[in-house]
């Protein structure tokens, strides 16, 4: 479904040159969910942005459904690939109602029957028709992220690019959104690429994943391997360990017990 070969993304030139993504290759099959994990500055979000045209592809190939993507991306591309952004507080237009946010992609692509499609989209993400004429500030963080997902899904894309879709949300709301994403994928046969710094979230939603660091791919592995603690690179091991919570070094002096 998605084939990325030797992708390089470079920002700036000469002294200001930053190689944000260096020679990253991976393929994602139809219906699969693929994770990109790494810390800030690892280039994981830049890969997503390069796929959907928000960052330049300096060299390498990005093929969607067997076809190389054109720059600028065509309308057809955005019917196939849509993106959900990290912060639902920043990615929805504050002065547009939910209805207007959802009807814009339909208008751009000349879709008819907007009203029914909007109500259907709201239903799909678990919100009732009463949300249709609200503004983003009248919604909670989780509800906003549901709207962002509804906006991405309203054109019936095959691929969703998810850039840290739950990291701005509380833990309990994160669980709801993860369940929703899991459910939508099964029902609609979607393909996901999920970017996250949280190994547990990626392992939950994805079958395979790529660990990135400083713009380079460190290792490609499967969620199953992560769960059983199998990782070939030291860096992945340290990420696994850090995700288990804080561990006090037993050789350290125990905390003063006199208090």
């Amino acid at each position: 479904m998605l084939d990325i070969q030797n992708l390089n993304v470079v920002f700036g030139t000469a002294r200001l040159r930053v190689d944000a993504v260096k020679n990253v290759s991976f393929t994602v099959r139809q219906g699969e969910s693929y994770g990109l994990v790494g810390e800030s500055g690892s280039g994981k979000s830049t890969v997503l942005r390069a796929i959907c045209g928000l960052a330049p592809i300096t060299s390498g190939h990005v093929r969607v459904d067997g076809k190389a993507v054109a720059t600028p991306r065509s309308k057809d591309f955005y019917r196939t690939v849509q993106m959900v952004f990290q912060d639902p507080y920043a990615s929805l237009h504050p002065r547009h109602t939910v209805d207007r946010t959802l009807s814009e992609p339909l208008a751009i692509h000349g879709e008819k029957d907007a009203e029914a499609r909007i109500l259907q989209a709201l239903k799909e993400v678990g919100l009732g028709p009463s949300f249709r004429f609200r503004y983003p500030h009248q919604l909670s963080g989780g509800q906003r992220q549901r709207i962002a997902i509804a906006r991405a899904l309203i054109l019936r894309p095959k691929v969703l690019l998810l850039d840290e879709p739950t990291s701005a949300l509380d833990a309990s709301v994160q669980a709801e959104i993860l369940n929703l994403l899991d459910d939508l994928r099964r029902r609609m046969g979607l393909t996901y690429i999920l970017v996250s710094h949280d190994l547990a979230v990626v392992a939950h939603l994805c079958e395979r994943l790529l660990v990135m660091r400083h713009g380079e791919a460190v290792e490609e592995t499967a969620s199953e391997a992560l769960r059983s603690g199998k990782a070939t690179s030291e860096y992945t091991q340290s990420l696994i360990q850090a995700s288990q919570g804080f561990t006090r070094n037993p050789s350290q002096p125990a905390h003063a017990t006199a208090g």
Partner: protein
Amino acid sequence: MMKPLLEVEDLHVRFHLRTGIVEAVRGVSFQLGRERLGIVGESGSGKSQTGRAILGLTPPPGEVTAKRLAFDGVDLLTASKRTLRTLRGGRISMVMQDPKYSLNPVMTIGEQIIEAYQAHAKASRAEARDKALAMLEAVKMRDPVRVFSLYPHEVSGGMGQRAMIAMMLVTDPDLLIADEPTSALDVTVSMEVLRILDELVAERGMGLVFISHDLKLVSSFCDRVLVMYAGRVVEELEARNLHEAKHPYTQGLMRCLPTLANDVRPLPTLNRDPSWAL
């Protein structure tokens, strides 16, 4: 039994707004000795406002009342501004969430640490400089002399946060309040920062209030945990007995996190019972 370092009894923080009164904290009580206390809750649970109220940093329309709010026997609600000034930054200090916003962008890190030290200790500039360098070394900066003369924008998030810890501990406080000290940092960096914080707190025998939304992190770092929901403490428990949590909110909060160890799907979600907020 030793006298507690911090006593909080029936703390309320209210905001008088145009639209009515919002009670962010509703009757929180706890005592703290020289131990690590974690306060956990989701956004809007009042955890940060509790921390701020202790330091008298509640933002303007807010009003703080309590039956007792005392630090080492000093009543913080009736104390003069002068007394508060000597306590704040001197004996109680606070590490904030994001070093990008809470360090002074136009002063070098070294100058900021010196300023913090000289505000509370009578010391010559040379002494203060030595102390600042020693503190930067204590937070494991690789090259303290270089970091001393850097501006906040020239250092990474992890270094900035360590610089802030250095600044907050330079006056040898008895109580440190850390409000989400690692939420803006990457996981591996945040473990490093926590390790440094942990060592310094243990070495100096300080009391620590660790405020975070991350139940797993707090329970692995602290001795005791207060779980807050809608401005109240719904449960207080020993960190190591977290798995024995009784309140459905605490249990729900623990279960709804995806873990590497178990693959549960769908993830259990939290059904918020309106009676929890009563």
